[in-house]
């Protein structure tokens, strides 16, 4: 019998809101939004954690410029606090090296991290998800009780088709969806917004394509100053889910 699942509930019991940032495809801005969202919420005075569950392509450490820190061992592992955010990623253990993991290994590693990490009390834990609905997403839904999803898409037809599938699965499993963000918008169009509303999922807002964003990668201070972050902050301020007291 696996001793780990039974302790996972205990690990999350003092976290007010658990928000997984997901989407159908890769490269649509999930990690950028998860990282910047964590920064914005921390900047607003909330206590925030960020968990990178994209073991195949972890990127939040690179986006936030996190390097040279390591969890403490204290009856488990305690994530270090960087830019005010308690941060946990597989890169602590894999470094710059590749982790060629099959699904069964991803599942085991997710369960292990959820079981041994002591987040303490938090207003928000933001979870950066890999693309698609595979082991990491299914285990998140299965093991993190009360998790809510923030779903990202771009205006591209293929991205929208794929995100539609993710939304269908989440709805079928009765997982709460905070909203869908349309990222990297280049032209005026209400197409995505309408499609999302049609399937009865809340539309969360839009973020414009920001040519200068790439130059801020690796620098949390500059990241918060980008148009991208400003767009996202508007969404945060106007979305009721981003108040910790509303959560469980």
């Amino acid at each position, binding site marked *: 019998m696996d001793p780990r699942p039974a302790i996972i509930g*205990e690990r999350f019991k003092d976290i007010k809101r658990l928000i997984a940032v997901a989407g159908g495809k890769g490269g649509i801005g999930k990690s950028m939004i998860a990282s910047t969202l964590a920064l914005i919420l921390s900047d607003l005075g909330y206590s925030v954690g960020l968990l990178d569950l994209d073991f195949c392509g972890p990127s939040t450490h690179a986006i936030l410029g996190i390097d040279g820190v390591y969890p403490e061992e204290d009856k488990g592992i305690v994530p270090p606090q960087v830019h005010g955010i308690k941060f946990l990623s597989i890169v602590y253990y894999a470094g710059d090296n590749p982790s060629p993991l099959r699904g069964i290994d991803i599942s085991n590693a997710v369960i292990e991290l959820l079981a041994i990490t002591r987040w303490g009390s938090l207003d928000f834990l933001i979870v950066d998800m890999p693309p698609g609905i595979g082991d990491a997403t299914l285990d998140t839904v299965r093991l993190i009780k009360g998790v809510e999803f923030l779903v990202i898409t771009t205006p591209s037809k293929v991205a929208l088709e794929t995100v539609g599938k993710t939304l269908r699965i989440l709805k079928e499993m009765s997982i709460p969806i905070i909203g869908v963000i349309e990222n990297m918008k280049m032209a005026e169009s209400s197409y995505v917004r309408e499609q999302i509303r049609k399937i009865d999922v809340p539309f969360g807002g839009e973020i414009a394509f920001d040519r200068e964003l790439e130059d801020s990668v690796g620098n949390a201070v500059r990241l918060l100053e980008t148009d991208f972050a400003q767009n996202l902050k508007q969404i945060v301020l106007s979305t009721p889910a981003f108040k910790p007291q509303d959560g469980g």
Partner: protein
Amino acid sequence: MHEWALAEGVISTALEVAEREGLSEITAIKIKMGELQQIDLEIFELALREIRQSQMSMVTNATAELEKEAAVLKCRVCGREWAFGDAPLADEERESIHFLPEIAHTYITCPGCKSPDFQFVKGRGVWIDSIVGR
């Protein structure tokens, strides 16, 4: 000392089993300690004892029996099996595997064909063999 967290998992699981099966007391827990995770057996045993005895519960008086299990890896490409003990590893690499056994795929490749595509045949980590109660 992150072994404490896994010991908590063992005790929580025993309590869940007791509840589910309607037992009044857990008397014995048998645990397989997989080599890959390199858990310090003394620390783990101590943690189990402290958690068990920290408050009166259905598991307070249970005995815990720990059994070491050697780790065997098997390549999915060429079929070769080998012992984890044979892998040449730096201290930090061992330490990373201690926290997250799957990280073995980052630092170990098949001694036969160099593939990182292997499975843990046995000895991955902490595993509950049996829980006995009444």
